[in-house]
């Protein structure tokens, strides 16, 4: 027989459990952006903060499920790809409206495609769509049917639409009208971005409840990760999408249920040299940076195992190339991480006329080898990587000046003014497929960081990469695609335009007040299903 007190305890427990396990509608989710969003135009997104806002607000025709990695219908109910792989026809969802109530139709898709392909827009997303050439045509067949035709076949054609947010042609709010789960309600420069529930969002759950469940998401602009962690521990934030390793370990020690290590991510940290012909860099330095021997020697001088162990406390593995080894399908397993070998690096440099003189490396014209590496201020891992690299390169006589810059200045330098010598940054890979990297590897691409937007490939190896990337994108033969992309990885390994350093593990922290989260390795790790996230009773009531 159950006593009254026991029964009361059971009832209290049941109420608590139901409150914890099953969140309800409403409440405000809070997390941080690491920098100011550069743009709210979904077609111009090129930075993490804008990418987050685009993901949470933009409506796309189809979306890769970050957990199953399968493609799911969104604004398009279904689609059909022509046998030659050049055309895709979408059947659009009925009754969808933008956040200001403007109806969604095939005209919006045509308008978006036209805008995307406009060369004057310089859309980074557009690079992915230009792989077979610029002559992409869009035809509105009916208000709910539209076809997009490419000049050549594109493999994984449907998957490239995951990144393309459909903007409205008719809405007076232009790109501020969105068809995603949230819309931008308020933006305070330097402080926060407030997203509120899109009242016209089309998605409902299996019980017919309208999504998203949350009322709003508050994104605080906070470049300082220490402050972000402190606020998370205080309960002011609900999640940290990517967690630094030292904080991960500390949090794991005190509150293990809050942290999640999803294993090696698809992301990578890397370093590169500025090879832009018109960059304000001394000619003799440009000659170093354009030499594959110099780049490979620098790569050989770096101790990646130490970076993994010291900077990431072992929560990373030495990187090999553009594909993380965790991407089993596309990784070229014949390549191995470059081991540190200062002697081999010096031998390689000798081939280009470099020599050591009183411990300093001197080029064939007598110039001492010294360059600066820029990285973003506030990122401790990158600052520490820079210091380790500084020490590693001093062993082969290279003097490195490490400079940390605020993020907007850094981006301006590396994408517009090209006023830098070398940089350390990271890539967030959102797609397993090589087509997702078209906007990096094509020599004409905006994100071809070491020498972007080339009219024609300036080197033979870049021309070969262009050819191979196009070839893999135009065939549906999986074996041929793999061969082509394996070769791309080999060239990148040999030429080292990017010196890959480490693949960090996907580490995140999620408060117990958030229900429905299922962190994975694909970006965005923790809030990929934001429309399904809920807050528990206590958290909801406090906001």
């Amino acid at each position, binding site marked *: 027989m159950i006593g009254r007190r026991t029964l009361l305890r059971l009832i209290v427990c049941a109420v608590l459990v139901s409150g914890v396990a099953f969140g309800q509608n409403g409440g405000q989710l809070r997390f941080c952006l690491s920098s100011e969003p550069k743009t709210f135009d979904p077609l111009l997104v090129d930075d993490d903060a804008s990418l987050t806002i685009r993901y949470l607000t933009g409506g796309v025709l189809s979306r890769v499920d970050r957990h199953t990695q399968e493609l799911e219908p969104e604004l398009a109910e279904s689609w059909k790809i022509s046998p030659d792989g050049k055309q895709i026809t979408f059947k659009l969802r009925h009754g969808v409206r933008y956040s200001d109530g403007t109806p969604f139709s095939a005209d919006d898709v045509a308008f978006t495609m036209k805008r995307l392909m406009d060369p004057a827009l310089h859309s980074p997303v557009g690079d992915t769509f230009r792989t077979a050439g610029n002559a992409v045509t869009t035809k509105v067949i009916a208000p709910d049917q539209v076809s997009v035709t490419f000049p050549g076949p594109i493999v994984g054609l449907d998957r490239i639409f995951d990144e393309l947010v459909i903007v409205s042609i008719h809405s007076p709010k232009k790109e501020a009208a969105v068809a995603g789960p949230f819309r931008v309600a308020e933006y305070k420069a330097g402080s926060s971005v407030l997203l509120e529930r899109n009242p016209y969002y089309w998605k409902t759950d299996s019980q017919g409840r309208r999504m998203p469940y949350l009322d709003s998401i508050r994104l605080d602009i906070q*470049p*300082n990760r*220490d402050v972000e*962690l*402190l606020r998370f*521990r205080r309960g002011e934030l609900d999640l940290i999408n990517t967690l630094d390793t*030292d*904080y991960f370990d*500390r949090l794991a020690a005190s509150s293990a249920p809050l942290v999640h290590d999803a294993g090696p991510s698809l992301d990578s940290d890397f370093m590169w040299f500025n090879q832009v012909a018109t960059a304000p860099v001394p000619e003799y330095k440009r000659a170093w940076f354009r030499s594959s021997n110099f780049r490979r020697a620098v790569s050989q001088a770096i101790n990646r195992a*130490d970076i993994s162990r*010291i*900077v990431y406390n072992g929560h990373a593995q030495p990187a090999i190339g553009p594909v993380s080894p965790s991407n089993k399908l596309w990784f070229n397993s014949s390549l191995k991480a470059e081991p540190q070998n200062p002697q081999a690096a010096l031998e390689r440099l000798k081939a280009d006329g470099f020599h050591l003189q009183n411990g300093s490396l001197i080029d064939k014209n007598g110039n001492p080898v*010294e*360059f*600066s590496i*820029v990285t973003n*201020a*506030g990122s*401790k891992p990158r*600052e*520490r990587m*820079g*210091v*380790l690299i*500084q*020490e590693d390169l001093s062993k082969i006589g290279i003097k490195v*000046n*490490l*400079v*940390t*810059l*605020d993020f907007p*200045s850094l981006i301006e330098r590396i994408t517009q003014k090209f*006023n*830098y*010598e070398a940089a350390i940054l990271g890539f967030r890979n959102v797609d397993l497929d090589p087509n997702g990297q078209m906007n990096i590897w094509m020599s004409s691409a905006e994100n071809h960081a070491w020498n972007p937007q080339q009219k024609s490939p300036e080197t033979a190896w870049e021309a070969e990469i262009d050819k191979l990337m196009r070839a893999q994108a135009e065939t549906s033969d999986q074996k041929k695609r793999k061969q082509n992309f394996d070769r791309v990885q080999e060239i990148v390994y040999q030429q080292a335009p990017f010196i890959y350093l480490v693949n960090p593990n996907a580490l995140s922290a999620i408060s117990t007040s958030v229900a429905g989260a299922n962190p994975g390795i694909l970006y965005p790790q923790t809030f990929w299903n934001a429309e399904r996230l809920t807050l528990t009773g206590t958290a909801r009531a406090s906001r």
Partner: protein
Amino acid sequence: MKAARWVACVVVAAVCALSFGANWLAPDGYAKQFREAPGAPPSRAHLLGTDEIGRDRFARVLYGTRISLLLAPAAAFVSSALAALIGGLAGYLGGIWLKLSRAFTDLFLSLPWLFLLITVRALLPLNVSPLVSVLITFLILGLLGWAASARVLSTSADAARNSDFVLQARASGLHGPRLFLVHVLPNLMPVLTAQFWISIPVFILGEANLGVLGLGVAEPLPSWGSLLRELEGMISFREEPWRLVPLFLLIVVMTSFQLLLSNEEVTA
């Protein structure tokens, strides 16, 4: 009080001696990375443990103290001199000069320094050695930090201008720069000295904050500012109390300076 001043004197002398003896006390230097022991606790080999990338914290504190003890007062001297020139002179001249000086000071104080500093950083070359970067940082701090002190000094100089002793000096035929240098400036010295000492910790912390903009002391050179930045990641002081040594040192040295200052004031 006399004993406290003696203690302060000994503390400052000891800290100065330790920092200037860094080459002998920490022969491995501030940049050597002991990669097998990152984030190590204090030991015989590393008296204050190592930082996150394995550099000896004791060595970094000694060298950082040397840099900050030399350059923060230098920056404070520059800013105090500017404050005396702008605020003191305007207060002494009075009238339109005083109004103009206050308007200019107010305008200077209201400028969005963050954006201006970002612009300054953008104008600086990237390839500068850490030593040059530290000199630039403190020079900028010195050139920009005069406004608040100038406001205080202009008020004091204004009061001095109308004081009996200046009127008497005027009546005895003393004018112009000589009157300012002989009668007004010495009376501004206590205020100016106080402003000078107040500026030092402000500049040390300012340098630490500038690091976020890429204007701070460049790696691998240490400074009190960069050492204090390490505390950003501290969740609990109990876990690694030895990491608080730079903060403790800053407090002790600044308190000692203040005690010595009060001595000077008493003497004056």
